[in-house]
């Protein structure tokens, strides 16, 4: 059943997908940093307030994924920021996250060599988001 985009239920299902992925488990071995995703508000898309997704990732597992404010996400070791529409494009496979970062469509903050070292893990994490059935606020 579809869940509301970037809701607590979405975060729970996303965490389950990450923890079910053997590809992620292997590619993210050694990862020990928090990742924050800032989903910027787009009121005209029925997404009126920015949200922050805080991911506590450790050594190939997602210990916790929660939804809070943008400020919560900005405190993480790595922060990726984009408007709601861009994240929707990522989650629906319209936009590859790696390309999005190289094009500046997704803004990334954090230690670059570390994130590059874990490219495969971040790609698989993006794949995990695409496996969560989502009810998009601009489509309801």
């Amino acid at each position, binding site marked *: 059943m579809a869940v509301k985009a970037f809701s607590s239920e979405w975060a729970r299902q996303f965490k389950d997908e990450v923890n079910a992925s053997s590809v992620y488990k292997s590619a993210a071995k050694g990862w020990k940093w928090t990742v924050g995703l800032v989903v910027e508000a787009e009121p005209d898309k029925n997404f009126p307030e920015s949200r922050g997704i805080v991911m506590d990732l450790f050594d190939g597992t997602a210990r916790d994924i929660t939804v809070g404010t943008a400020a919560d996400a900005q405190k993480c070791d790595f922060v990726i920021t984009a408007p709601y529409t861009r994240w929707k494009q990522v989650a629906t496979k319209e936009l590859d996250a790696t390309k999005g970062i190289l094009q500046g469509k997704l803004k990334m903050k954090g230690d670059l060599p570390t994130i*590059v070292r874990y490219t495969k893990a971040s*790609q698989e994490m993006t794949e995990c988001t695409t496996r969560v059935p989502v009810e998009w606020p601009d489509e309801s």
Partner: protein
Amino acid sequence: MHDAGPGRMARRKLKTDRSVAFADQEPSAFASMLGGLIDANIENSPAKRKDFDELEARVGIWVTDIDEGVTLEFQRGALVVHNGLKPKRDITIRAEAETVMNLSNLKIGLFGMPVYYDATGRGVALKLLRGKLRIDGMLGNIATVNTVTRIFSVQ
């Protein structure tokens, strides 16, 4: 030089204390990322710093699936990153975004040679064989290709 242009690339005097500078007032996201990556690599590794201090070359990187590129102008201890491909490049790497990222993940083995026999290396070698990764100017500049690979590598 595989890409003979109309003349030498303008060398701007950029006032900066850092080793990496950007030629454009608004560096592209790709330029910022590559410049930042190289900056972090040479800060963290004396071996990469040594390579960086000795390298003089103009390296183009073109990401084929986003139609964006940069020119890296290595000047023995300094780097100027230009948006887009500029003339007079010694080598030009053309590949998809994923392959460009994989190039940064090549391990460096004996004698400072990139490792092509692990999973990442085999993937890169296969792309090269299939023409999905092109390195124009490679033949006369193997040493430069290897040095640039070492500086890029985050491994």
